[in-house]
């Protein structure tokens, strides 16, 4: 065993890498770099990046009720919410302002954990680089709003679960409402029809 043969062995390893990078595919020890802007790896469903606000059907119909829980929960305090009021000064269940400072946000995902209204979720969008960090990275409500279809597209598993839950809750609510209605119409002798009506 000659002194220095270990070095030669190591050098052969790198030489093999060097040559195989030209002649071999990514799975056989060749290059495995993906040329990013042109080619992309498929996104993983569990990828979590900056948050967005979910709306149903139309942008006006957003789920957020401006409860401020997420803003309180946010560790770096990057969420800023102002409740909307109607003309009489009564509070409405929707935010007038919903700002997230993405330069401050640290992608912890506590907001989506905390939100009881399924209104805020973590996004997959990571290409947000910008030349103007002061204005362009302070996302306002309009920048944050994304449809439920988008949510369903990027995170199908979570979205279907959420949708099922919401649907169920809605059913229950409707049933309750129907029950209330039925109670209200108690004199009327048509109680058995009440439970069936929503299903129909």
């Amino acid at each position, binding site marked *: 065993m*000659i*002194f220095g043969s270990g*070095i030669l062995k*190591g*050098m052969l*390893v*790198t*030489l093999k*890498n*060097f040559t195989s*990078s*030209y002649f071999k595919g990514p799975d056989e*020890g*060749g*290059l*495995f*770099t993906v040329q990013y802007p042109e080619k992309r790896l498929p996104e993983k469903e569990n990828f979590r990046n900056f948050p967005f606000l979910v709306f149903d059907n139309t942008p006006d119909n957003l789920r957020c009720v401006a409860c401020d829980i997420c803003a309180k929960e946010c560790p770096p305090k990057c969420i800023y919410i102002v409740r909307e009021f109607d003309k009489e000064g009564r509070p409405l269940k929707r935010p007038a302002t919903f700002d997230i400072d993405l330069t401050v946000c640290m992608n912890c995902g506590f907001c989506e954990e905390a939100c009881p209204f399924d209104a805020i979720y973590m996004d997959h969008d990571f290409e947000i680089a910008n030349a103007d960090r002061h204005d362009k990275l302070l996302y306002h409500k309009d920048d944050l709003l994304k449809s439920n279809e988008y949510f369903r597209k990027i995170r199908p598993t979570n979205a279907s679960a959420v949708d099922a839950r919401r649907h169920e809750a809605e059913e229950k609510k409707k049933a309750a409402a129907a029950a209330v209605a039925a109670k209200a119409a108690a004199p009327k002798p048509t109680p058995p029809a009440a439970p069936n009506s929503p299903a129909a």
Partner: protein
Amino acid sequence: MDQIFVTLKSGILDQLGRFLPDWALVVHSVLISITAIAILGPVTMMYLTLLERKVVGRMQNRPGPNRVGKWGVLQPIADGIKMLTKEDIVPLRADGVLHFLAPVLIVMPALLVFAVIPFGRNMTPVNLNIGFLYFIAVSSTSAIPIFMASWGSRNKYALLGGMRVIAQMISYEVPMVLAAVPVLMLTGSLSTNDIVTAQSGWGGLQWFALTPWGFAGFIIFFLCGVAECNRSPFDLAEAESEIIAGFHTEYSGMKFALFYMAEFMNSFTVSAICTTLFLGGWQGPGFLPSWLWFFLKTYSLIFVMIWFRGTLPRFRIDQLMGLAWKLLLPMTLANILIAGFWHFTHGWIKIAGSIALVIASYEGLVRLNQRYTPEKRVYTFAE
């Protein structure tokens, strides 16, 4: 094809000779050589950076830079533009003059060494009869600018890095020169041209590196050269994990680029001198022009340097010094004797004896450097 550059130069001089006085022609002849070198040096450096990044990338299964231009060929130019436009930062209490002078001066020896390199047949810029000594002397002065940089930055990491560089350069210069001594002994000349001519046998393949002593000398010279230009694995003067960037910690922009340039030109010149001394210089079978042979050999040595960098981890300081003083230096001394043995013996005993001596001295030195741990004694028949 072989003499294309020589012909080009004399053609230009002929054209100039029509309207210039004789003394001006001499000046122009010098100027043309200088210009060629002054272009070759930086361009070499620029493309060495690209080569290094590509090769190291490939060794790590990455493609390396490939965005600027096809295969990234314009990357060095882009880098150059970036360097030039970068802010030049001078520390508040730095020694202004030295801080400014160091990067300028460090390029000088690196460029000056190009003067004695035989790039091809009849293509030595200046054919000094003490060319090798010139190389040694000039490259030894590069310690001073490094001192200036480390001192002028007024930064303790810079100072530590400078000290390490100097200690390393002084230590490795000794085995480097001694490793070249057998070549000078057998050639009987210090001129780089003569050394190349002495290796012209066997159709341009009688390289000194193909003899036992030459092989040992070649390995030692090349290792010392790698250490002289502070490249991995001897780059602990620039050990990021310990002392940031060593002596050029406080440099940015073009000044930093100059240090970088000097380092790459040094690795080029070391490879070139190594080629000249041991690999036959521009000698080679005739199907390629001489300068192409030269550049092929030089670049393959540079490739080996990059290969080292892609493979080996950094030395510890005591290992570095131990290697130079305990292994390389005695090995070079033994090598000188072996070269003498080679010169004064004949026949098979010359070859076999030299090979055996090289291997024996190497093994012996390695054994001597090993620490002895006695075996534990076992008693069989004693109670």
